[in-house]
């Protein structure tokens, strides 16, 4: 293989690599201010009654991606988790809405128990 050929192959490989690897999003620097913008990644929870209540309250402190990420849990386990969010983490959720949230989670993301 001659030198030109080798060079062309290297260039082509580098080009392919650049095409595959998108440039990393940087931080913005304006004077002494450094900032980033978080991408929006909407999450669609499974259909079901009271899904809006889950989105509204759970989303105060964390994305609802937390829900599908969890192992399937029984109603007792979901109830313990929601109670922990309220009693331990201080999530401002009225009892009536907490009950709706537990109902939705144990139906849409439950074990059937």
């Amino acid at each position, binding site marked *: 293989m001659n030198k030109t050929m080798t060079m062309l192959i290297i260039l082509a490989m580098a080009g392919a690599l650049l095409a*595959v*690897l*998108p440039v*990393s*999003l*940087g*931080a913005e620097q304006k*004077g*002494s*201010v*450094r*900032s*980033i*913008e*978080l*991408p*929006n*990644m909407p*999450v669609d929870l499974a259909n079901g009654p009271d899904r809006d209540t889950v989105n509204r309250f759970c*989303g*105060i*402190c*964390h*994305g609802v*991606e*937390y829900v*599908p*990420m*969890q*192992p*399937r*849990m029984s109603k007792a*386990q979901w109830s313990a*988790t929601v109670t922990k969010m309220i009693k*331990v*983490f*201080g*999530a*401002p959720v009225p009892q009536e809405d907490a009950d709706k949230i537990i109902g939705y989670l144990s139906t849409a*993301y439950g074990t059937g128990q």
Partner: protein
Amino acid sequence: MSARRFTRREFLKAAGTVTAMTAVNGLPIDAFAATYERKLVRFPEKTDLILLTSRPPQLETPLSYFKELVTPNEALFVRWHITPIPTTVDLGEWRLTVGGNTNKELLLSLDDLRKFEKVSYTAVIQCAGNGRSFFEPRVPGGQWKNGAMGNVTWTGARLKDILNAAGIKAGSVDVSFDGLDPCRVPTVPDFVKSLPMDKALEEDILVAYEMNGGPLTMLNGFPARLIVPGWYATYWVKSLSDISVNTKAFEGFWMNPAYRIPDNECGCIPGGTKPARTTPIHRMSTRSLIIAPGEGQKLTANKPLTITGVAFSGGYGIKDVIVSTDGGRSWAKADLGKDLGKYSWIQFTLPWRPAKLGTYTLMAKATNTIGDSQPFEGLWNPAGYLWNKVEPLAVVVN
């Protein structure tokens, strides 16, 4: 161990890892997952990482990056607790406040921090919940696999020097650390951690303003974070804003009841039970991980290859790593790579030429310099911490 067959979950895990290597941005990388897909996403100053949650960002490092001795900044995992997180810092305004039971209060700019003696070392940073998804019975929480860790060269000022500049007064018992993460719900506890006084004064604890020679990425705690080498990253408070010397033990939410383990030698209890007493988690367990070949990878009979991986312990350094290619029946001592000090991970290698066709179960087991090693069965605790089981890894030779 030798007769033990792979569970279905381990098979699914293997399948997921192989898929991960060929995944592209935004596509599912764990097609077998029953309830959710692990996909690759791109956040500012980061490469494609595995998404756990986007609010707050929790991003896991794909295992292929652990082929490198030092983890690149853009590949280091991300873990925040509560949304929102700091996304803008004005260094003209930012000051690290150091006060409490001190002779004077300091308000340190980043330039002021740089005036302290500059200290640099490489240390493993690992989330307390790394490996939580492998717990059986399963436990709720961030379902990390093995990618909530990395090995980074940190540079900064000694916490001890900063505290001494403020002047610690008599009667001080601990030091607490708060970051910029704003807490917008008044009932939700602000993320604050503490270290006992003697721990805080240890030589190697840093307020770091550089990772791998560059500024901290915003998602990893710009402009400065605490480095507590050997201890789990829950103490490594990001985007530091306040350091307070306390005369009464700090007992905020994130020290109690959060981030605690059963108060016994293994930090473990029988699966599904509740601990009688708990204690704050701190030092990292000894662990190792085979990085190549990857789980489920197809190999060719009689073709030589090198089994490689990383091993580390909670600040004691690694004495040896043994590797098995037959599910634990026989073991060989691996060669250890470049030693970057007791807080760094060390790479291990073992040349291997699989002669026969079939499935092989690879395992690695590390022992640190004080004799701590890894269990063959997962140790269980309710929060899913301290995971360090010897992981069987299946490869197929054909």
